């Protein structure tokens, strides 16, 4: 019944879920992880189908292993047993004396390998106030405990929804957004705003989203679709983590073409031809793209106005501080072209792909997606020329200010219509009978989106 991709295999990225904690982990030879303060041996999950449930069993103090379990044995929550309950909290004092067990005693129970239900029963028996709490307050307390002390763990196969959840949450410092604060509702709208079609050809630039944007788009791409992934020389593993975690089939990766930012700059400035530029297929030669590759400088042969903008793009995009001086542009460019020539052995395959990219750029793309930490304005204004008429672009920023500016600038142009700047509001609900209300905490922002449609005026 299970296809091979539904079975947990070594080297897979897996999502581990325990209570309401969720982490992304790559299975390596060393099959143990630290999860909520305990060391868990994962060897028993290999070879089993994804979504399997496991009971966390103690081997010795602080060391646990996983035992596959029947989903029916998993209690839906912890139970208080048949205790009485109070009507309100008028007799409950918040004096920290309610629990007779000390912290050490509780930890000791944990170290002895008692189940969370046993621990909770002990906690209840030693609590002076538990029976005075209302039924609802008791339930809430139990819910909190069961989230904290879950004895069960589920292994899930990474998908875009789970990756966006797991990559976004930063439990270590909640105020420090990961993924640029790109919330799932915003991510979902990037895809609809750009009218993402499985067989379309899209240009995408992402930075600081761990490859999630590219992975989301590739997940929605059919074998006839293409993603032109704009990369900068420091395109490291961290920028494609989600792409790897998704474990797409090999043929899927054929849909991604990585193109250096400099290629676009050259194409834009040199009368629209792709030449001597480094283009490579995602799966084939990513290893070749390292920090060793020089930051590309900008050709000086374009129009003045155009040129200065591109230089700015280059400098704002370079995070490594490896910015080539623009004074010696011609010289640098020549040297670089030579080194590129020697560095990259051009096969006929690559030339064919060069040709393919040239055609793609000549025929223009079906959309442009920009999600980055940089100020995207100059880049977007340049890249619009690569988007076909009646197709859309969408730009995400964590900040509103640059998008306000971009809105104003694009408004002046004749070739962009229907410019919109939006922000979303998302909240989740606790749904329980008689106790339904919004969750106490919510993410206050999910970032800003600017979108528009390209038109022709002839």
């Amino acid at each position: 019944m299970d296809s091979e991709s539904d079975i947990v295999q070594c080297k897979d990225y897996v999502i581990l879920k325990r209570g309401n904690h969720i982490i992304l982990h790559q299975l390596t030879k060393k099959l143990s992880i630290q999860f909520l303060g305990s060391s868990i041996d994962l060897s028993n999950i290999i070879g089993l189908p994804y979504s399997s449930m496991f009971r966390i069993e103690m081997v010795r103090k602080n060391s646990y292993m996983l035992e596959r379990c029947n989903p029916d044995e998993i209690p839906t929550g912890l139970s208080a047993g048949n205790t009485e309950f109070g009507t309100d909290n008028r007799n409950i004092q918040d004096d920290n004396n309610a629990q007779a067990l000390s912290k050490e005693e509780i930890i000791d129970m944990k170290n002895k390998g008692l189940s969370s239900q046993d621990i909770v029963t002990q906690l209840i028996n030693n609590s002076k106030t538990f029976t005075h709490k209302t039924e609802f307050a008791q339930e809430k307390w139990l819910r909190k405990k069961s989230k904290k002390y879950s004895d069960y763990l589920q292994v899930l196969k990474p998908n875009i929804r789970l990756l966006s959840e797991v990559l976004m949450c930063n439990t270590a410092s909640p105020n420090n957004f990961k993924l640029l604060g790109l919330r799932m509702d915003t991510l979902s709208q990037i895809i609809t705003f750009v009218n993402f079609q499985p067989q379309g050809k899209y240009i995408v630039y992402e930075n600081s989203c761990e490859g999630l944007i590219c992975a989301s788009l590739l997940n929605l791409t059919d074998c006839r679709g293409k993603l032109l992934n704009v990369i900068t020389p420091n395109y490291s593993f961290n920028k494609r983590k989600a792409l790897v975690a998704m474990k797409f089939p090999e043929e899927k990766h054929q849909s991604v073409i990585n193109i250096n930012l400099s290629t676009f700059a050259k194409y834009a400035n040199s009368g629209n031809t792709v030449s001597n530029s480094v283009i490579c297929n995602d799966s084939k030669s990513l290893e070749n793209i390292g920090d060793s590759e020089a930051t590309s400088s900008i050709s000086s042969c374009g129009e003045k106005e155009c040129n200065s903008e591109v230089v700015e793009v280059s400098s704002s995009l370079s995070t490594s501080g490896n910015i080539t001086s623009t004074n010696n542009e011609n010289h640098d460019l020549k040297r670089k072209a030579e080194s590129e020539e020697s560095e990259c052995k051009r096969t006929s395959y690559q030339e064919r792909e060069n040709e393919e990219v040239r055609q793609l750029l000549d025929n223009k793309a079906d959309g442009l997606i920009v999600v980055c930490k940089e100020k995207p304005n100059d880049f977007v204004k340049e890249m619009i020329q690569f988007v076909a008429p009646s197709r859309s672009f969408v730009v995400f920023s964590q900040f509103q200010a640059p998008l306000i500016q971009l809105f104003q600038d694009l408004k002046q142009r004749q070739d962009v219509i229907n410019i919109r700047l939006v922000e979303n509001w998302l909240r989740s609900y606790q749904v329980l009978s008689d106790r339904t209300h919004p969750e106490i905490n919510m993410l206050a922002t999910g970032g800003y989106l600017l979108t528009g449609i390209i038109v022709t005026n002839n």
Partner: protein
Amino acid sequence: MSFVGLKSRIEAGDTVIIYINPHRMHALEVKSKRLNKNSEEIDNVFQTQFGALNVESLIGREFGSKILLPKGWIYVLHPTCEMWTQTLPHRTQIIYTPDISLILFQLDLKPGSVVLEAGTGSGSLTHALARTVYPDGHVHSFDFHENRVSVAEIEFKTHGLSPVVTVRQRDVCRDGYGESMNDVADAVFLDLPLPWEAVPHAVKAIKKNGGRFASFSPCIEQVQKTCTMLRGHGFGDINTLECLQREFSVIQRSLPVLSFDSVGNEEGGQKHESIITALPPLTMPGHTGYLTFATLPPMHSRPLILNIGNSGPD
């Protein structure tokens, strides 16, 4: 044509979007004749504030081109599901793009997915579902309203969605999805007055390998009943969300400067400074509906001893 797939030039039979301004868009079918109120065939002419547009003259034009009319110009655009949602004829309350986006995302849909939708309504969501699962997937859409089904069917055909969308007249709550839908679905979506009644049918329709569930309901009572039912039928990761979108106007304003210098200077001489800011709308929809999502695990991890006794609505 062309809600799934993209092309660059307009052909006869295409649906196009006439763009006048962000708040004035119209969807048109490109054909030479249309029927008037008295069912007589007349030339297909579309009236705009800038003058009349002979719709047939659009054939051969590039999508995204500017069309000159006697008193101004308009743009003719490639249709998208989002613009269709903005322009479609309402036969029911519809689901809008922010909710649609979240539904597509939370249902884990991708090319090749099979999704069941009930009810079809005005087909706003159906278009977006079709675009996502195209070309190998399928949308099975159900509605109990005979006329809505037949109108939707024609519309999907005109829009080129027929290869990926099948519409059927059926009361899913009462009759389920039918034998042929057992174990076919990767995802199930409900937009029904009594969604909890369809939950047991959804369980049958979702593949043995598991799948995702979504329900859109305007009222919290519907949500509560649905969540109780989901818990009783082996669903996990039950999550209810609400999403609203705020659209800003970018404006430039000149504000008088208040400072110590401006004292006694109110008449005429006060300094002004210009600001550029993004202004949220004065009013906006404050509620569309609650979206409830859940996962039905694969068979091997699905609880079988279900607490059916407590699964009924409270």
